[in-house]
């Protein structure tokens, strides 16, 4: 009997795509476009984007991990990287590659947030536009999402090595039937 295409690994991959994809898209969007979101005219959009990025840079700097140049680099690239990665993971394109990248970022977040929690740093998580303190709940949430991301990426790599159940030819012991010659 053919195995179901929805095995445990594929179920986890789907869960990962459906949960982590939109979360990453929203996280990136909120960092770049919230709370200041005037989009017109152009100089308003520039000012809104700049102040939002400046806010995010301030939150990154609060973790006391990076140099000023590093803080600026992360602040200017991470929001848009999150949006793109989240979208690519959501649609499942090249999941091995982009899922692995997302998992790496998620593990990084989890480590940094856990470090801040253990050091009793009274700072904002910086995950979304709304201020969120770093408490045990946030640490556990990030750890859970990191675990899901790692499983999703791992299973994507494992499943990619096997043929898709729908495309795998049925294997039987009998020789294929040959129509009788007329």
């Amino acid at each position, binding site marked *: 009997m053919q195995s179901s295409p929805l095995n445990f690994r594929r179920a986890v991959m789907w869960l990962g795509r459906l949960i982590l*994809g*939109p979360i990453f*898209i*929203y996280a990136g*969007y909120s960092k770049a*476009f*919230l*709370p*200041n*979101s*005037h*989009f*017109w005219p152009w*100089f*308003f959009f*520039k*000012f*809104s984007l*700049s*102040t*939002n990025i*400046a*806010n995010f840079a*301030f939150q990154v700097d*609060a973790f006391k991990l990076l140099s000023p140049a590093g803080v600026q680099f992360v602040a200017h690239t991470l929001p848009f990287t999150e*949006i793109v990665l989240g*979208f690519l993971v*959501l*649609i*499942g*394109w090249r999941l091995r590659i982009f899922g692995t990248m997302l998992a790496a970022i998620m593990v990084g977040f989890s480590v940094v947030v856990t470090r801040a929690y253990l050091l009793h740093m009274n700072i904002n998580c910086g995950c979304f536009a*709304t*201020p969120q303190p770093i408490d045990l709940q946030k640490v556990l949430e990030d750890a859970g999402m990191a675990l899901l991301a790692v499983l999703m990426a791992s299973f994507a790599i494992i499943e990619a090595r096997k043929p898709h159940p729908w495309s795998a030819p049925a294997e039987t012991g009998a020789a294929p039937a040959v129509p009788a010659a007329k």
Partner: protein
Amino acid sequence: MNRRGMVAAIGGLFVAGLVSMSCLVSGSSLIAAPASPQTLASVADVDPHEGLGSKNAPIVMEVFSDFQCPACKSLYESTNRQLMDNYVNTGKVYLIHRDFPLPMHAHSKVAAQYSRAAAQIGRLEAVQEVLFQNQEKWEASGDVDGTVAKALSPAEMTKVRALVKSGAVDAFITKDQAIGNNTYRVSQTPTTIFHANGQTFPYAGVMSWDILKQFLDQLLVGK
């Protein structure tokens, strides 16, 4: 259309939906803006002791701030001096300081009281500067009085202490908080409300001087 393409299209629609939703929900509705003020007179409850610059300036900036907030310190240190020299003192901007002490900061209310009292005797700028410059110290020690005393003369300090002790300045702080909560729905500090060209533009968070300068110049051109 194959499965991948369909998922890509759905994802694209989702992202486009997010972006278009933000275009409809402009920043000013995230923090509710009042009816467009045309002049300073239209800005609610301005304490003249907390206003700096010309009252006829084309741009009014209300800054909701908490003295114990690190972001407020960053905004003050990166923009205040240049803002004062290039825009407030030249009559382009009327700057209003609004006290918005956050509940999670243990000493910010006391700092606001001392700042407000100093404003009553015309020493707002000096006390603001000494409070922000020494934020880490008085945040840890709680010694707001000692910090403010570094910027004022003994006679001035006596007046300030009397004002703080009498509670005379508390009503001003409460009024600022009410304006922040009810009029602008301020949810974080610093929040800057720009009034220009008959419109109101709230902006939350820090901003660099270069970006602020460009924005102010554009607002001035737009008048």
